[in-house]
Each structure stands twice: as C-alpha cells, then as structure tokens.
C-alpha cells in the first residue's frame, strides 16, 4: 500500500516536471490577476487593503479551477484510468494521492507566494500569517472539491464550463470563510472561529472527496 502511494507520487512528479508549462499556468494566472488589480483601481493603499482579501482569494480560486479541468483528462484519454479502476488497489487512495500531488505543485506555490502579493496590495505584515493560514487550509479544499467536478466531467469533450457551473457553488462557503477571516484580522478581531471552520471543511473534504472522485471516475470510465 505504501509502495503504490510512493510510486504514484513519483509518476505524477515526473509527469508534472516534464511538462512545466502546465505546472506554471495556474501560478502565472494567479500572479497576473493579483498584480493587474492595483494598476486598474489605482495605488491608494487604503482601497487596496480593503480589496486585498477578496482579490487574492478569488484569484486563487479561479487559478485552481482552471488548473483542475485537465486533471484526469489525459489519463482518461490514454487508457490509464481504466487500469487504475481495474487495479486491486483502492482507487480512492490513488485519486487522493493524485489530487494532493496536484495541490503540492500548484496550490502550495500560491500559498508560498501569497505574502508577497499581500504586501503588494498594502496588507499590514501582521495580517500576512492569517492570509497564509487561510490559503493553506482553503486551497486543498478547492483542489479536492474541484477534482470531484473534474472526475464527473472527465468523459466530456468540453467539460470546462460545466465544471465551473458544478463546482463554483461549492466553492462559495470556502471563499466566504477565507475572506471573512482576512477581514476580521484586518479589523483586529479574532480569527479562530473562521480557521476552525476552514479546518473542519478541509478535514471533511480530505475524508469524503476521494470517495466522490473515485465514484465519478468509475462512471466516466464505464461510459
């Protein structure tokens, strides 16, 4: 069991690094959106500060959604998914590893870069740890929920729009909690409640999403 997890991780790692363009896409999108905002709305620090949580979170959310569209597509098209479904190893575990790997190479980079963009949007340094923590808890939820949609739309030629329609409603609680925590921190109020909710959703997504993803893929493969 441990061996298959490790081998799958290595496989995903190799695949990701041999196509670095796919890896950079969400990150570049995130950076572009966040850095274009000050140019568009003007450099007034108080306004930027008020907008920063929303801008960073929406950019992270859309970047994740964009990158997830193709998560299972190439494996579906070349027949790899069939082999996964037929394998005696639990499909749920394999998809969990795949999604977590995807988060490690795309979501984690956004989390790491977020303080930099926070400062660019005039966020006070004292709020930056809260920003990192909300994203650290929130982006895995976005990846896992998005993967459910990606699994359900895997057999469709142009699943991108449908994926957005399916998944965006599920993203809204995460978005509200993430930006809510940031607003509270900006006003000097406690953020523990928001963090606990985000943590709770993250645990829920980690435990339940793999089953939904695996079920979606089984349906997709049997089409």
């Amino acid at each position, binding site marked *: 069991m441990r*061996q*298959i997890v490790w*081998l*799958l991780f290595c*496989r995903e790692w*190799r*695949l990701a690094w*041999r*196509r670095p363009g796919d890896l950079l896409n969400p990150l570049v999108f995130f950076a572009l959106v966040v850095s274009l905002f000050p140019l568009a709305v003007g450099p007034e620090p108080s306004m930027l500060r008020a907008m920063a949580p929303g801008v960073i979170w929406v950019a992270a959310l859309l970047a994740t959604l964009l990158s997830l569209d193709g998560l299972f597509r*190439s494996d579906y*098209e*070349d*027949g*790899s998914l*069939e*082999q*996964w*479904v*037929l*394998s*005696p*190893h639990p499909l749920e575990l394999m998809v969990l590893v795949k999604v977590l790997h995807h988060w490690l190479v795309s979501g984690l980079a956004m989390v790491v870069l977020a303080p930099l963009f926070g400062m660019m949007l005039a966020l006070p340094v004292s709020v930056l740890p809260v920003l990192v923590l909300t994203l650290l808890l929130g982006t895995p939820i976005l990846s896992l929920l998005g993967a459910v949609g990606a699994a359900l739309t895997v057999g469709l030629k142009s699943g991108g729009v449908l994926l957005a329609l399916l998944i965006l409603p599920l993203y809204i609680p995460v978005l509200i909690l993430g930006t809510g925590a940031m607003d509270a921190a900006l006003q000097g109020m406690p953020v523990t409640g928001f963090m606990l909710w985000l943590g709770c959703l993250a645990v829920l997504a980690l435990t339940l999403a793999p089953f939904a993803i695996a079920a979606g893929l089984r349906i997709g*493969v*049997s089409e």
Partner: protein
Amino acid sequence: MYNGARLIQVPVALKYSGRSPVNMSHPPRRFGVKVKPLPVELDGLACERDQRELFASLSLRLEPGEVLQVAGPNGSGKTSLLRIMAGLLSPSAGDMRYGGESVYRGAGRENWRQQRLFIGHAPAVKGALTAEENLAWLCALSNPVTTDQIWQALEQVGLRGFEDVPCHNLSAGQHRRVALARLYLEQHPVWILDEPFTAIDKAGVAALEGHIMQHAEQGGLVIMTTHHGLDHLPGVRCLDLGQVN
C-alpha cells in the same frame, strides 16, 4: 487438462524473427508464483448501449488453457463484451463467474481483480514517461516488478535500446509494444486483450501469437478481439457476435 493448482511460468525465449536475437546471457526469468486458473463462465450476459441491444443471453464456458477470439463486424459489441468481462462495464443482464463465483459481487469481484489482465484499445502508455517508467507503474498497479524484469520484457517485444526513450518519441507500433510488454511481466492467468495486434508488424504478430499460445498451454486463458485471422492457430475458439444476434 486442469487439475488443482499449477505453476504458470511466463515464457522467456520468444524470438522476434530476425529482429532482436534473445541474449542468452540473461538468466531465464521464472515466476514462482502459484496461480490457480479456473474456468470462466458467461451466463446469459446481455449488453445494451444507448437503448440498443448489442447482444443478449450470451452463455459460454471457457476452460483453463483456452483461447477465445471474439469476432464480429464493427459495432457488434466486441469491445463492450471485453469491458464487461474485465469489470469496467456492468452487463444489463446476466452474470459472469470465475471458478463458480460471480465477478461482479463480493469476494469474487476482489479475486477477479487479481486474476485478469486487461489491455484495452487505449494502451495506457504515457507519452511523457519512458517505456521503463510506464511499465514499472502499470505493473505496480497489480504486482511490482524489478527494473531487470522490465528490461528483459522490453527486449522480448523488440524494444531493446528504447528503454529510456520517452514514449512520445516512439512509433505507433512501438507504443503498442510497450503496452504488450506487460504480457511478459504480469502474472495474471486470464488475459483480456482488445485488438492487441493494432499497428504491430508481421514478425511482431507472429511472436505475440506464439506467446499467447504458450500462455494457453500453461493453463492460462486468453480472450481477445482481433480482425486478424487466427485460423492457423490450433484450438482457438471463435465467438462471432455478428451471428449471435
């Protein structure tokens, strides 16, 4: 004849005539794994796709050591039948049993996962990975194999020297050969092969036929579709889906 557990050995010295002589310095590979080939029974199997009946009440019994060629015109349900047998699709009616146990329920289903090897129309070979990396992962999905075993298998499908080449640099036939190298690596007694000869040259097809017959002789079971005639092979059963309907 089949009696009790027996040893299936994956054959070693299968030559691609004139292509790559088998290097005898390699020790012959022997799997000492005991697998128990059991009969496969189809019982009133039916398949419906898009409200169109492809086949119905298909019943058949395959003993260990048999090769079944599923034939029929395009769209007659060959691939669907193979996918149903592999467990990717559920039949609209009927059941399939391996050794008397249904392969769609309970313990029989888990057991079937260990017993059958399915190589579909899409070969599951990743272009960005090398032949060796592809095979290491595909085999790990059932039983991990060593690099040495992979190199030997690649040699037997005539891909010596291509072990480290990313598969998108290989031709269509070589791509297919990478997938078929699994037949030399995996230990499943039942093979389900969908058009295995696609894009393979004459010498390759002959070698593959030899390998399939050898697997059958050792008690294995092969179910395959192909448009390539297998009449010259002894003891190949043919199921024509065009006539079933």
